[in-house]
Structure formats: structure tokens, C-alpha cells
């Protein structure tokens, strides 16, 4: 009936202090506001309903409405997402957001609709950079022989390899121990994650080489989306778009906070010349020739 409230179940893997979680909370509040209480989002944080890959599967199965994923685990579902794991496609943050907000960026968001994963919007997840236990990295050569933890993704593996490190896939949960016991020598992530994961307790050098800018993507199951009436779709999209603006500002603040805090804790933050790093990955860019990824890289670079 008319009085019924539409509740969407949304699960993700981040903890509740994470700026992306706070963006999602903002989105839920906004949705209640714009829909006059007719729609709400129930949030399940902290991976209590599964890993990112599993949550996407649950969207495909239809037992979960929404999730937030990083574009790396999305590679297995939507191959075009690989483009975000290719290093140095974007010149800077401004370029990055110009691409995301362009027609091509929006098209990419909908690329998963055919596999029941419809993108609603991009959240800022900053740029990923290397951190090392006891080796300061100023130039790519400093990565030689360093075992760097990567996410389970072929693109991430190639990325570290092309920059000169030895990529080592280790699960995020095992990483703190692996770093402190020396199983790996370093890892790579954005400043807020470096801070909240406490990896700065072990890794004393953080090199802001910013090799990849990997957005977080809010997804809705296409079944659920198609079941919403047009008005509901408009409300949901409105809440998403407002949350994106809010979350970008929050992310910038949290990044600065994180960098201040790790330096306070004794971490040396290095701001290297990015040119030698960029030069190193040209061969990797070329290796995509003849694939849709190559075309995407070229389109993005030209923007």
C-alpha cells in the first residue's frame, strides 16, 4: 500500500569510522529526507555479510539490494573496470574527477547492468601509494627486491611488477602480521586506509607516488532497481548524487588528518618526483593494445 516503507539492504566491508561508510550513512539519511520517509537504507558495515566479491554475487542472486565495492574486485565481473587499476592513467585528482563525471565515466558505471550490477555513483577513495617497513622509496629503483602486498587482481600484480617491486598477494586481514613479521616488505593504499589499518605502526615510510586512483562504486542489484517505480529511482539517484558531493569533501579532510596522524606517529612521508614512476609504466599501457582497456586509457588520457 501507499504507507509501506521501501527498505533497501546495503552491505559493505569497511568499518564505521571510514569516510566511505560515512558517505553511505549520509546517503541513507538523504534518501529518507527526499522520499519523505517512504524509502530507507539498512546498512551492514564491516563485512558482516561477506567480502566484496561475495556481496556482488548476492546482488546477482537478488538477496541483497546494494553494496559498495572497490573497482579491483569488480574486474572479475565487469572487465572494463580494469582501467582503474592501470597506473598513471590520470594526471591528477582534477583530471580523475573530470573523467568520472563525463559521459564515458557514467557509461562505465552502467557497464555492469548486463550482469545485474548497476552502478549508482562513484565515491572518492583517493590515490594509492606505496608504504614500506624500513626502505624509503624515492624512485622506482628503490622498489627492486621489495615484496609488495597487492590485492588479488592481475592488473594490480602487473602494476607493481612494472614499477619494479615483487607483487605478493596476501589478504587484507593477514597483512598487519605479514608486515610486522617480514613476510612482505610493504604494501600500497590510500592515506586513510594506511592510517585506520594501523599499518603505520609497522611501516615507517610512506611514498606519495599516487600510482592509481581507484574509485569506490555504489552498486544496486538490477532486479531491485527495475522493481523500483520511476519516482523511487529518482529519489535514490538524488540521494546518491548528494552523498557524492558530501563524501568528496569528507575524503579530503580525512586524507589530511591521516597524513598528519601518521607523521605524528613517526612515519616519514615522501613526496617523490612522479615522472620516473610514470615512465616505468608506459610499456604496461602499450601491452593493452587491441583491447577495450587500451581504448579507454586513450579516451581518458585525451580528456
Amino acid at each position, binding site marked *: 500500500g501507499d504507507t509501506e516503507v521501501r527498505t533497501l539492504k546495503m552491505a559493505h566491508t569497511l568499518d564505521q569510522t571510514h569516510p566511505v561508510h560515512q558517505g553511505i550513512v549520509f546517503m541513507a539519511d538523504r534518501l529518507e529526507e527526499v522520499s519523505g520517509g517512504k524509502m530507507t537504507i539498512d546498512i551492514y558495515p564491516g563485512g558482516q555479510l561477506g567480502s566484496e566479491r561475495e556481496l556482488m554475487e548476492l546482488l546477482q542472486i537478488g*538477496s541483497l539490494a546494494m553494496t559498495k565495492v572497490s573497482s579491483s574486485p569488480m574486474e572479475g565481473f565487469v572487465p572494463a573496470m580494469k582501467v582503474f587499476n592501470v597506473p598513471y592513467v590520470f594526471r591528477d585528482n582534477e583530471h580523475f574527477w573530470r573523467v568520472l563525471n563525463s559521459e564515458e565515466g557514467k557509461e562505465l558505471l552502467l557497464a555492469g547492468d548486463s550482469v545485474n550490477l548497476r552502478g549508482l555513483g562513484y565515491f572518492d577513495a583517493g590515490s594509492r601509494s606505496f608504504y614500506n617497513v624500513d626502505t624509503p622509496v624515492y624512485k622506482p629503483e628503490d622498489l627492486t627486491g621489495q615484496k609488495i602486498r597487492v590485492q588479488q587482481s592481475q592488473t594490480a600484480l602487473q602494476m607493481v611488477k612494472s614499477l619494479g617491486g615483487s607483487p605478493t598477494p596476501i*589478504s587484507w586481514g593477514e597483512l598487519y602480521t605479514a608486515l610486522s*613479521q617480514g613476510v612482505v616488505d610493504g604494501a600500497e593504499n590510500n592515506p586513510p586506509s594506511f592510517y585506520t589499518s594501523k599499518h603505520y605502526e609497522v611501516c615507517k615510510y610512506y611514498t606519495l607516488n599516487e600510482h592509481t586512483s581507484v574509485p569506490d562504486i555504489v552498486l544496486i542489484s538490477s532486479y531491485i532497481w527495475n522493481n523500483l517505480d520511476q519516482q523511487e529511482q529518482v529519489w535514490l539517484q538524488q540521494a546518491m548524487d548528494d552523498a557524492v558531493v558530501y563524501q568528496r569533501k569528507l575524503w579530503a579532510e580525512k586524507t589530511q588528518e591521516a597524513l598528519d596522524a601518521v607523521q605524528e606517529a613517526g612515519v616519514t612521508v615522501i613526496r617523490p618526483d612522479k615522472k620516473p614512476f610514470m615512465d616505468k609504466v608506459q610499456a604496461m599501457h602499450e601491452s593493452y593494445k587491441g583491447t577495450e582497456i587500451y581504448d579507454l586509457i586513450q579516451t581518458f588520457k585525451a580528456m
Partner: protein
Amino acid sequence: MDWSVVVLLVTFVVLLILNVPISIGIGVATFAAMLFTIDFGPAAVTVAQRMASGVNSFALLAIPFFVLSGLLMGRGGIAHRLIEFAKVLIGMLPGGLAFVNIISCTLFGAISGSAVAATSAIGGFMIPTMEKEGYDKNFNTAVTVASSTTGLLIPPSNILIVYSLASGGVSIAALFIAGYLPGILVALSLMAVCAVYAKMHGYPVGRVPSIKEVGKKTLDAIPSLFLIVLVIGGIVGGFFTATEASVIAVLYSLILSVFIYKEVKIPELPEIFIKSVETTAIVMLLIATSTAMSWMLSYENIPQNISAALMGLSDNPFIILLTINLILLLVGIFMDMTPAVLIFTPIFLPVAMELGMSPLHFGIMMVLNLCIGLCTPPVGAVLFVGCGIAKTSIAKLIKPLMPMYAAMIVVLMLVAYVPAISEFLPTFFGLYEAK
């Protein structure tokens, strides 16, 4: 109360009493409860997906590998030599072998960070060995199960890392140091139980050995002792992770028992491998369906609803803390540790902090509390592994476990009401500032 909870509990208890395999009972009950909110088709697919996801974990590899190395150590003469060695050291104490068991489980749990791995690795040979020496099998299994959980408090410990994330920022280094005292206290309290138990049942007390005997047994045990050096050294030295250490244990015990001691013949190996799969699979199916159940509970917001109802009962700080502990013990009975930490930290930590508890103190208390849940039926990973290895029934383990639950609860109360037990060491090492 939520109808889905009623259906879950009734279905599960009825199937349990009728002796349906627990793993399958959990799966059926979960599916039945799920049907209240999810359609038949997606519910069946979701249970199947959660089952596969529950087992799809690298950290769980420690289970099959330590089960396998346990079998090899048992048949290959490694376990025998290690225990002979331990016997000449502390066999003359009442309940000496039980002490050996507790120390082994604590050490092993400490380095591997996995209670399940400790139970399978140590229990695999300690349970039958103790039985041969005249100890009751169920008692042996209970000792193994209870003492294996100490490794979750003594670093490294994945569950404390999970807590650090869930609590939004307690230092992992501080948590690790904080876990030592409570972990050791649990081990000591279990030893006290064993000493009393052994005296009451007149368990064999070994004689004091001669110096010559000590020398010979030590020399005999050196290659076997090297296994421990290899595993601990490898982890500490950063050559491999705790999970990978389990495969190193397999390789070393394989070489030692087949080529050095020659007590296992190569044609016997296939049967040993199949045997290890069987034990592993019993545990894996339990983990699989428990994962589905934990998922369903979270999905229906059941833990939050129940605790909200219970927390409204009092405003006395002592009672509130007691209530939190009772709820967590209850949670631990039905839920696995990782989801429990993820779900309940955000619910209880703010309450605890209002009572003046530090997040560090609360985390240690919570993990210790949930450790007890790991060895209580119906859902307790360590208990399952213990039963699987000893091929005994859960019902038979309850009686010998009772005094051990009591000992662990005493330590839990100490940790809950005496903050210094958790906070002294981290403060002393400058990793933490007590308020």
C-alpha cells in the same frame, strides 16, 4: 520475539536431539528461518553461496595441514618422542601429561594464532597418547580444546586485528601485548583444574627420571623438537606466514617419518592423506553451514534486537558489565568469533566506555569471553575440531569441560573487573596511555 529466531531455534534443537549431523541441522534451520524474508529460490542459492564462502579462506588451510601433520607425527614416531621427552621433564607432577598438553596447545596457539590449528596439531597426537597412559579420552579432548583458545589472546592473533578494525582504532601493537597476561592466566587456571582432576581420579604420576634417562630421551627428541624450532623460527623470522607454517610442518613430518625414522611406509601415505581429508571435511562442513547461519542472524539484525532488549534491564554499572558478558557468552555459544566481534563491538563498546572501560580493556575482555564460546556447543569451531580428531561425541565432552568453563569464567571475571590485567603490560612498554 522474531518468528525467524523461533523457527531457527526450534528446528535446530529438534534436529540436534534426533541426532541429525550438527552441520546439516544448522543448514536446515538456517534455511527455514531465512524463508521469512527471502524467497525460496534466492534463499537456497544464498545458503549455498555462504557455505562455499565460509570455506573459501586461506587462513583455514591451517586445519587440513595441521591435521595431516598431526597424523604423520602420530604414526611416524615424532609425537611419541616428543611426549617421552616432556614426560621426563614434568611427568612426575600429578596430571603431568595434561600440563604438557596445555603448554603445547598454548605455545602452538600462540605462534599459529589459530585455536583450531592448535587443537588439530597438538590434539592429533596428545589425545591418543594421553589415553594410552591411562587418561580418559574425553578429558584429554576437553583439555586440548580449552587450552587451544589461549593462543587467540597471546599474539599474533587475527581476532585482535579484527577487533582493532571494528573498534575503529585501538593500537594492534598494544592489543597484542595486552593479550599475554590474560592468555597465560587462562592456561594457569586450566592447569589448576587438571591438577585437581588428576588427583581425584588417581591419574598416573611418573617417577623422577635418572640423569642418564633425561639425556637419552632428550637426544632422541632433538629431530622432533627441531620441528617446533622450524615452525616458530620460520614464522618469527618472516620466512612464512602462520598459515604457511602448517605446510612446512607437513613436509618436515613427512620427511622425518618416512625417510629418517622410517616408521611410515610410502604405500601407507594415500590412506593417511584420505584420513586427513575426512577429519578436515567434518570441520569444513560445520564452518560452511555456521557461516550461513551467522549471515542470516546478521541479515535479520537479530543480535542487535536481542541485546537492545537485554540492555534495558538495569543501570547499575556492575550489572551492565555482567549483562554484557552474559550476552557475549550466549553469542559465543551460537556464533563464530569473527562475525561476533564485527557485530557486537559497535554495539557494546560505547556502553562499556560510558562505564569507564578503555577500548583496549574491553577488547581483551570480549575476545576472552568469545574464546569460551569457541569450546561450547552447539557452534564452536574448536570443539568441533576436538571431537572430530578424537572421534568422540560432543555430549561426552560436556562433563569434563564443565570445570574448565568454570576456570575460564573466573579468569574472565578477573579480566572484566581488574583493568590492570589488560592494561599493565601495554602501559609499561609505552604502547598505551591509561586514563
